[in-house]
């Protein structure tokens, strides 16, 4: 149906576009502009304080990634990303399964399980640092009291235990988010499926394997993506607990970017590393989307 020179459908489209326009402006200013600026910086020599740019080709990338400690930083980043994601997902999934039980007092338990997520990261980072202090920290104190002196290690001051120690703290701080997301997905699954499966003789593992897991798969993939992005961008806990030490044993790309920008004042090199990080995240997202579409098509064909 026509009204004047514009169709009703066109008018609806324009109205919809105008309604989302504020959001688009915010996104452009808060996200697209900084990303574009970072991209420009990564290919420029930057004069401070005016930020006058002159084209520098790939020199920033070569300079940043040829620093002697870069290989260690990349290894640390991979270890951190995989470790953090696997641990948070595993603990979050196990807790979600527990919290999904229909027993008296479960809501209280859910609130308690959420508490680590409500503590500000700086507070929890400092608390964990004090607890892990090798000389007089609570954890070593308890281990010594129980006669387990051999397990009272120099947690944050040894290159072999520093990263696992911070991973433990990061898992504690981050699992509640995973738990809540997966718990919500589990609670939306139809109860009748479980009842029918039980009647057919399915045990607990089979219920989990053939009903719960496929049912929460879409949410699991979303959480996995978010956790991977979060892990690649990690900064706060590592900065507070170890500062990237000892000897660079816990320095990951996020801390490396900070060092380049705010210690070395080299915003070109810092931006080049950031651009590489963004590219990796986008690549990961594209691969994940492709894998998800393929698995959807497989499911539909079956």
């Amino acid at each position, binding site marked *: 149906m026509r009204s004047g020179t514009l169709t009703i459908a066109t008018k609806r489209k324009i109205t919809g576009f105008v309604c989302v*326009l504020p959001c688009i402006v915010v996104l452009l200013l808060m996200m697209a502009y900084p990303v574009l600026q970072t991209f420009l910086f990564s290919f420029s020599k930057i004069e401070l304080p005016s930020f006058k740019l002159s084209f520098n080709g790939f020199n920033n990338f070569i300079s940043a990634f040829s620093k002697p400690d870069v290989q260690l930083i990349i290894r640390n980043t991979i270890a951190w990303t995989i470790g953090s994601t696997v641990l948070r997902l595993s603990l979050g999934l196990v807790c979600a399964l527990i919290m999904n039980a229909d027993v008296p007092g479960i809501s209280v338990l859910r609130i308690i399980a959420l508490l680590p997520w409500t503590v500000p990261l700086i507070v929890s980072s400092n608390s964990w640092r004090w607890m892990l202090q090798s000389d007089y920290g609570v954890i070593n104190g308890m281990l010594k009291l129980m006669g387990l002196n051999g397990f009272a290690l120099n947690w944050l001051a040894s290159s072999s235990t520093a990263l696992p120690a911070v991973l433990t703290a990061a898992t504690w701080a981050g699992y509640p988010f995973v738990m809540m997301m997966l718990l919500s997905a589990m609670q939306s699954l139809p109860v009748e499926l479980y009842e029918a499966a039980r009647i057919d003789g399915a045990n607990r593992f089979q219920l989990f394997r053939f009903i719960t897991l496929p049912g929460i798969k879409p949410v699991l993939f979303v959480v996995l993506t978010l956790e991977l992005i979060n892990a690649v961008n990690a900064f706060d806990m590592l900065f507070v607990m170890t500062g990237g030490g000892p000897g660079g044993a816990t320095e990951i790309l996020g801390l490396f970017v900070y060092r380049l920008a705010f210690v070395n004042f080299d915003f070109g090199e810092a931006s080049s590393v950031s651009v590489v990080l963004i590219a990796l995240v986008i690549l990961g997202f594209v691969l994940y989307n492709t894998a998800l579409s393929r698995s959807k098509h497989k499911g539909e064909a079956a």
Partner: protein
Amino acid sequence: MRKSLGLVIILAVTAGFAVWAGGSKEPAKEPSAKAPQEIVVWMGSWWSEKAPLITKEFEAKYPQYKLKIDALPINGYVDNATAAILAGNPPDVLDIDITQVASFAGKNLLTDITADVGSKLKASDFIKTCWDYSQFKGKQYGMPNRGTGVVFYYNKTMFDDAKVAYPKDGWSYDDLLEMAKKITVPGQKYGVGISADLSDPNNVWTSFSPVLWWLGGDIMNADATKCLMDQPQAIKAIAWWTDLYLKHKVVPEGSLGYTISRDVVPLLSANKVAMLPFGVSGADTFKKVAGLQWALVQAPGGFNRGGGWTYTLPVSAKNKKGAIDYMLWFANPDVQSRLCATEPSMIAAWGLAAPWNTPVYQEMLKAAKTGKALPNTSKWGEASPLMIKELQKVLMGQKTPEQAGKDMVALVDPILAK
């Protein structure tokens, strides 16, 4: 009609937001001459008690100004300052550690105040280290407000329990090691505290550099164009210092992750560490600990890390004249003696009023006057963490002192040459 009104409102909000977010491109204007002109000063949080007094006295002397002091926590202080200057929204006066003057000035973030401030003051009125290091390449970039030295604090109870005589002025690092060995009970208490954590690099140098200087070495050459950490004296110093941890085990096990202020000071207060190197903040802290028996002595070997803080004028500060007037007002012994939250930079201020004229602080003045500073180069911020990481690797047994010294030179020399 309602749909059209809704569309107009949405368009107006969007346009208004875009204009606000785009910001103004007009250059900063000097404040109007009629209303009191605001001067914004950033300082460390240790100034928070004195800030109201400073404001009151300054505004009484200069009624045309309104002073706004932001006393900020040290965590993130430098990052916030850098970001503010680069964003064109800095304070008018920025208080920074003298070790950062070269980095900031080298990146053109500070204004040369030689003509407005430097030429109007006498260098001999100030503690030498903090005056010299408020300059960079012959130009004055800071008006020092704090001149520090480092002394050794010791826990008298721990010395008494171990039946060890207290340290005296003129003692050596060999004396320190002997005392530390007698006091240390592994796993329970330690003779001396050191710092090896990257989060406060200056604490590490406070701990390590006097050993290096005592053994005749230095971090860099005089014009900071070459790192000297591969020289025999430097390697000997790395070995001596790291042996406190590796061989003699007279320092806490967690020292790799300790800073003096955050970790070692509480250990001395808790009778777990017998000695530590620190500035006047140690005295301020220890006198508040009930039952703690403590004293201080000049650093062994005749060397301590001198330092200080200095008021600077960031480029693009809005009220440059006000900032200069503030700095010149603070360059007064009487003002400093009453209003400094920490050690005054002017020597005469130390004799005018308590606490500076008390015996404990007179010892601090002795240390400040003889303090030696770290290298004055704009590359120090980049070089320092790399060298500390090498020290950490020796402490973890991953490298020998020789390897670490050679690697420090290999890492730092290219930076100095840039």
